[in-house]
């Protein structure tokens, strides 16, 4: 089922939780709503489910406007952050709930309900535990019961609110793979909310990045990671360092020193790059010079904390473990992949319209995307 969100706003009293949000999702997509807490992502999910009503705008299920339909009529599978399993019911009763409470004329027979519930329990790999109560299950198992329960009503869309938020790191990883498998087998149109960018990048076909009640970028994991539309996205997804720079004569300058990076835009801007996308430059070439103020061992690389220029801007870069530069006081480097966001009049004049057209394309001479393997964070 295609899903459309058209110019939706939502205010709680005086605070605006969502401001003019539009989004369309195609059948079978697995979409992540990614953003910091308070960015409105959960509100958007609850609006789609019908647990909240929009202050303005409309929600479409296919061609049909769903805004005026009740929660019950929308037939969405909603998985809550803390599972919301019915504690006085067994796993089987929980999964079967959506079918057993149907009015008699549309309710399957008792045997049929039990068969379907057991099928789902085996799909979520909990066969044998159908007689247990929620308290007797681990967090990961509860999460899977909640998903099976949501799928039992054959939902038009599956909505998951921070599905792995309350689980520990190892269980999260296992469940991610498992959720992908389930999605590949069932092809339910699925939306999940997360504040974990790694989760969003790994799972989703498309990532919707939200901030302060607005969608700031929609794109594939590659697009949002490699071509962030606004500085916020660069900061929020992946690790990033930023420097205030100025463009003159086709050259990017930082603190009155040429950086060796070329650009055809004039004016001031913010230069963003990621720690693992830099190269160590020979001394004397056009590059950034920095004092090493700290060195930390990450899983596969060494991370250097640097202080750049007279203004002592802090940035981070990754170098290979055995690289001699880690021993030095001063490092010369150059970003290999970078993004320049113009600052100044344009942005201040029209802060909402930060879109693709204001973005400088990444340098064509960026070379290979990854020189070092990115560290696991």
């Amino acid at each position, binding site marked *: 089922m295609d899903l459309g969100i058209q110019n939706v706003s939502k205010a709680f009293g005086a605070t605006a939780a969502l401001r003019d949000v539009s989004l369309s999702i195609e059948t079978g997509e697995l979409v992540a709503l990614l953003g910091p807490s308070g960015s409105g992502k959960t509100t958007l999910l609850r609006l789609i489910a019908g647990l909240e009503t929009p202050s303005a705008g409309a929600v479409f299920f296919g061609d049909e406007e769903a805004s005026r339909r009740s929660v019950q009529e929308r037939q969405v599978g909603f998985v809550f952050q803390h599972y*919301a399993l019915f504690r006085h019911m067994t796993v089987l009763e929980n999964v079967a709930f959506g079918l057993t*409470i149907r009015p008699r004329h549309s309710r399957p027979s008792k045997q049929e309900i039990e068969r379907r519930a057991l099928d789902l329990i085996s799909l979520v790999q909990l066969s044998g535990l159908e007689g247990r109560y929620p308290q007797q299950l681990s967090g990961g198992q509860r999460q899977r019961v909640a998903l099976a329960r949501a799928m039992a009503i054959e939902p038009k869309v599956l909505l998951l609110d921070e599905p792995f938020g309350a689980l520990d790191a190892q269980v999260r990883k296992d469940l991610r793979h498992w959720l992908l498998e389930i999605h590949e087998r069932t092809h339910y149109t699925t939306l999940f909310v997360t504040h974990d960018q790694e989760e969003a990048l790994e799972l989703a076909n498309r990532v919707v990045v939200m901030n302060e009640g607005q969608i700031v970028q929609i794109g594939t994991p590659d697009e949002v990671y490699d071509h962030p539309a606004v500085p916020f996205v660069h900061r929020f997804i992946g690790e990033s360092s930023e420097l205030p720079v100025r463009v003159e004569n086709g050259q990017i300058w930082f603190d009155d020193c040429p950086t060796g990076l070329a650009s055809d835009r004039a004016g001031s801007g913010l230069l963003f790059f990621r720690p693992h996308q830099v190269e160590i430059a020979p001394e004397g070439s056009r590059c950034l010079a920095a004092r090493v103020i700290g060195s930390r061992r990450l899983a596969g690389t060494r991370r250097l904390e640097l202080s750049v220029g007279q203004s002592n801007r802090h940035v981070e870069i990754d170098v290979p473990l055995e690289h001699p530069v880690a021993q030095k006081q001063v490092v010369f480097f150059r970003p290999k992949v970078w993004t320049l966001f113009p600052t100044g009049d344009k942005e201040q004049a029209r802060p909402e319209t930060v879109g693709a057209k204001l973005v400088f394309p990444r340098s064509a001479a960026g070379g290979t995307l990854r020189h070092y393997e990115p560290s696991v964070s």
Partner: protein
Amino acid sequence: MTDHAIMLRSALTETPTVQRWLIAVALLFLAFFLFLPLFAVFSEAFRNGVGAWWEAIIEPDALAAIRLTLLVAAISVPLNMVFGIAAAWAIAKFEFRGKAFLITLIDLPFSVSPVISGLVYVLLFGSGSLLGPWLKSYGIEILFAVPGIVLATIFVTFPFVARELIPVMQDQGTSDEEAALSLGASGWQTFRHVTLPNIRWGLLYGVLLCNARAMGEFGAVSVVSGHIRGLTDTMPLHIEILYNEYNFAAAFAVASLLVGLALVTLVLKTAIELRFAD
């Protein structure tokens, strides 16, 4: 005491001497103020043997008082249960204007003297009021009749269920209900299959306390009842009358029933608390 023993003790633990003293003081207090009176009630009740006790219970006025007490409880407890659930639901699950005011109102019967609670109904329905004579012209007696006693009892006991349920419901939040709704359950189905089972122990606990108070209430009921023997006397009122007539054995016999009710309530309450604990 050796240094070693001091090392083993945590900072918050008293020395064994202090512990023993504290326990002894608490037990002495309990014995004097609780166990002694309890013992006195039963010993007075059975002073003349079980036969005399039984005679006092099946005496027509005593039976009428027991019947009236049961009737009043049977009307007021279910009503307060419905009211308690509704109020707790509203307070725990919604945000609305005047919520703090509603919570204060629910506590009102706790903070007002029961005699005042009774007087309120005398002022409302008495012969000098507007409502009383008007209702009387239709043949409806409120004061010095069963309806007045029921009203006063409801007023005095209405905080029990709501007070018990509000924290339970606030603790549970609304996501269970939202889950049920998203799975297609109607409002009633959600209440019946999800909310009610979630609050059942708290509800039972509140109903027990409410019932104990409804049967035992003296002050408010005394003001509105009119003390008509065999008609508007509840058990506590009947006990007082018997006592004032120096009929101690009979007074304590009926009193032993109320004490028995209190003991049963205590046992059930403890059982429920144990159940809560899992």
